[in-house]
């Protein structure tokens, strides 16, 4: 029997998330002998991240992808992966997320009706601002810094002496242009696709937080597939994640080159000094969720 899977994702079609979706759709159609068809809805057409996750849990959407921070209401421990300076390199992040620690958190999503297909990525978050390159923690002091809904990142910028300002992402571009805020942080692909470079002067490669994506499928729909189809789907999903991560690394250089035409890029950042300065952000997480997962991540990272 043919099954059609509705795949909603939040980014424009130029983004690598869409490329991954297309790769997944093509491979899955071929390897399942036409049994599994994927219908892609890009650009948040089927709703915001929160709505798409609710939709995937209840089966109105079959597959969705969203920044991992959108799942921390369901699995609070997942916030550990997005803590500042949690992962020194991408490879470490891949190892931890694809290993027992990451899959364990994924398993916890099942009680909410979701099967984890994998952790594609948006790369590391980097800061942009209008006042000057950010090399040491003192450069962050006094910035009007837009922050998202992550408690840890908000704590981090507070600890660094910036003035963290909660703004809806829809108002961020205008706010940067008019000067309500003068700094923001996003992964490179987002800074590019939302065109924040047009209203910012400096991009500093602070790489202060890894930004994994949570790629999930409706569990009931998954369970309905034959065991054979299930393993085909998981295989293709794993390949798609690898494909996406490859595009992310490869694409980042090209994107940085593109960005360098519009703003000054600074790669001279004292990572160790930042790591020490943002410790309070970790303390907040530990006091709320304990340090088991952090220690597990650190242990898996060191292997």
């Amino acid at each position: 029997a043919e099954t059609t899977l509705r795949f909603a994702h939040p980014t424009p079609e130029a983004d690598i998330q869409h490329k991954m979706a297309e790769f997944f759709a093509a491979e899955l159609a071929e390897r399942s002998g036409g049994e599994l068809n994927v219908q892609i809805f890009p650009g948040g057409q089927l709703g915001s991240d929160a709505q798409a996750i609710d939709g995937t849990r209840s089966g109105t959407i079959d597959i969705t992808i969203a920044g991992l921070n959108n799942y921390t209401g369901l699995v609070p421990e997942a916030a550990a992966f997005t803590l500042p300076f949690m992962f020194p390199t991408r490879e470490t992040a891949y190892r931890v997320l694809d290993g027992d620690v990451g899959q364990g958190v994924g398993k916890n999503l099942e009680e909410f009706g979701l099967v984890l297909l994998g952790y594609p990525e948006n790369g590391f978050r980097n800061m942009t601002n209008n006042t000057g390159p950010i090399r040491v923690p003192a450069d962050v002091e006094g910035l009007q810094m837009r922050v998202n809904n992550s408690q840890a990142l908000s704590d981090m910028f507070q600890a660094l002496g910036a003035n963290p300002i909660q703004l809806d992402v829809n108002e961020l571009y205008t706010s940067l242009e008019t000067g309500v805020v003068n700094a923001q942080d996003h992964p490179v692909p987002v800074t590019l696709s939302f065109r924040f470079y047009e209203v910012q002067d400096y991009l500093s490669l602070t790489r202060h937080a890894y930004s994994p994506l949570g790629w999930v499928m409706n569990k009931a729909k998954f369970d309905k597939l034959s065991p054979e189809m299930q393993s085909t789907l998981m295989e293709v999903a794993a390949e798609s994640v690898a494909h996406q991560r490859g595009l992310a690394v490869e694409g980042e250089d090209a994107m940085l080159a593109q960005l360098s035409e519009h703003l000054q890029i600074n790669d001279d950042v004292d990572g160790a000094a930042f790591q020490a300065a943002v410790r309070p952000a970790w303390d907040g997480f530990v006091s709320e969720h304990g340090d088991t997962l952090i220690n597990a991540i650190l242990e898996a990272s060191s292997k």
Partner: protein
Amino acid sequence: MQVFLRKFWSGVDAAIALVLIVMIAMVFANVVLRYGFSSGIREAIELSRLGLVWLVMVGAAVVLRRSEHLAVHEIILLLPKPITLFLRRLAYCVILVSVLMLFWGTWKQTAANWQNISPLTGLPSGLFYLAGVVSSFMMSAIAIVRIINPDARLDGGIDDDLARQEFDA
């Protein structure tokens, strides 16, 4: 019954006013704090969105009670009176079916998101959907009464008289 209804709806009005004034105070305080004290209310954005959803959903029931949802009445008023009456009943049947569906949907979503705790406010995100549960419960009660008697006022208030006349004119 009249006394109860009047108290109930004026209580709802007071709740709407209260939510609105809290939203204004919160968003404005955020602006003031940003400049006066280099800080802000982290929860402000999320809480004001929550306030908006409750304001809109509960308000939608009030608007239904007052028959103020946008509608084109001109055409059915040209028809013979019994047909007009039938069509108004039919409209409330459609409203009843859709709000019952909304009730069931928001009920399920509230339950599914009761453990979905916002990291910033510590509140369950099911609270957003709960507004739909409360609202559709109120709207289905209104629809049932109006299917039986399309002219039922359901308020007993005095000032509402004026507003309705203004609208019908």
